[in-house]
């Protein structure tokens, strides 16, 4: 007689919040790619899930990661909010950690000094860049030239 209380099938899902009008519950739309049997092309298929949001921190439009609860909380709520992946209007780029608006940064990047001195020689420019074998974590610069 425990067919109703089976553990939840989808353990981790990611989706977009479409409604927050319920008490401490977020309505999340999850899209999965489903193959059309005739066209053999993948299309998004939507499904709504309800997630428990204890701190009411979701707004409509957030991209949210949900974790399955060990036991369904109610007839419809079987997941809880694990983390907000992209907050609407305040997206943070995971590579740099800076705020981003579309394809532009909100504040321009300042780690590489852009000097416009035309008369400095190449060796002086290299010295300015301060590259040496002992410098710590040489990460790839943001604008990487495409490797052929």
């Amino acid at each position, binding site marked *: 007689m425990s067919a109703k209380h089976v553990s939840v099938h989808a353990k981790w*899902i*990611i989706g977009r919040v479409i409604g927050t009008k319920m008490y401490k519950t977020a309505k999340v739309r*999850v*899209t999965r790619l489903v193959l059309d049997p005739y066209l053999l092309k993948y299309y998004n298929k939507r499904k709504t899930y309800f997630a428990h949001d204890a701190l009411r921190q979701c707004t409509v439009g957030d991209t949210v990661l949900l974790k399955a609860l060990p036991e369904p909380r109610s007839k419809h709520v079987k997941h809880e909010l694990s983390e907000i992946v992209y907050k609407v209007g305040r*997206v943070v780029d995971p590579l740099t950690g800076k705020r981003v608006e*579309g*394809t532009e940064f909100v504040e321009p990047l300042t780690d590489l000094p852009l000097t416009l001195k035309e008369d400095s020689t190449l060796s002086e420019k290299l010295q300015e860049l301060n590259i040496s074998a002992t410098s710590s974590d040489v990460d790839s610069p943001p604008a990487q030239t*495409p490797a052929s």
Partner: protein
Amino acid sequence: MPMKGRFPIRRTLEYLQKGDIVLKNRVKIMTVNYNTSGELSDGARKFVFFNIPQIQYKNQWLQIMMFKNMTPSPFLKFYLDDGEQVLVDMEGKDYKQISQHVKKILGKSEEVLQAEAQAKMQASNPANFGPRKYCLRECICEVEGQVPCPGATPLPKEMTGKHRARMAAAAAQE
């Protein structure tokens, strides 16, 4: 009559089955952030165009989500079962490099795939008996040299359950 679309070969079963990225069971969600314009995002766009259908075909239970023009640089993010997240940068890379990298970090290796294929070969495993759809034979009575099916020829008296039960009852009574 040619197929419709830009690269209609992507929409063939043969192409989908040729995909070689099978992700580990721990990976539950794959998120792709890429831009629709810009040369640095070109590899990412090609990866989405050519390889995503193959990955989804081979990983039916993986949730794949695409986000366009959200960040200046393209990247992939994998969400694993224990809450771990893996970030893969795609900026400036070629789509073949991206797929090989993904296969190296989170793909199942050749040995694991072959072991799984072996285990699944129960249809051709002669040790299993069952419905015709899954196994070769349904009952041992079909094999030459074994006791024939009692439905076709009646069993000898000594082998019937009725007789054996009567003998066992007689022995217990004594």
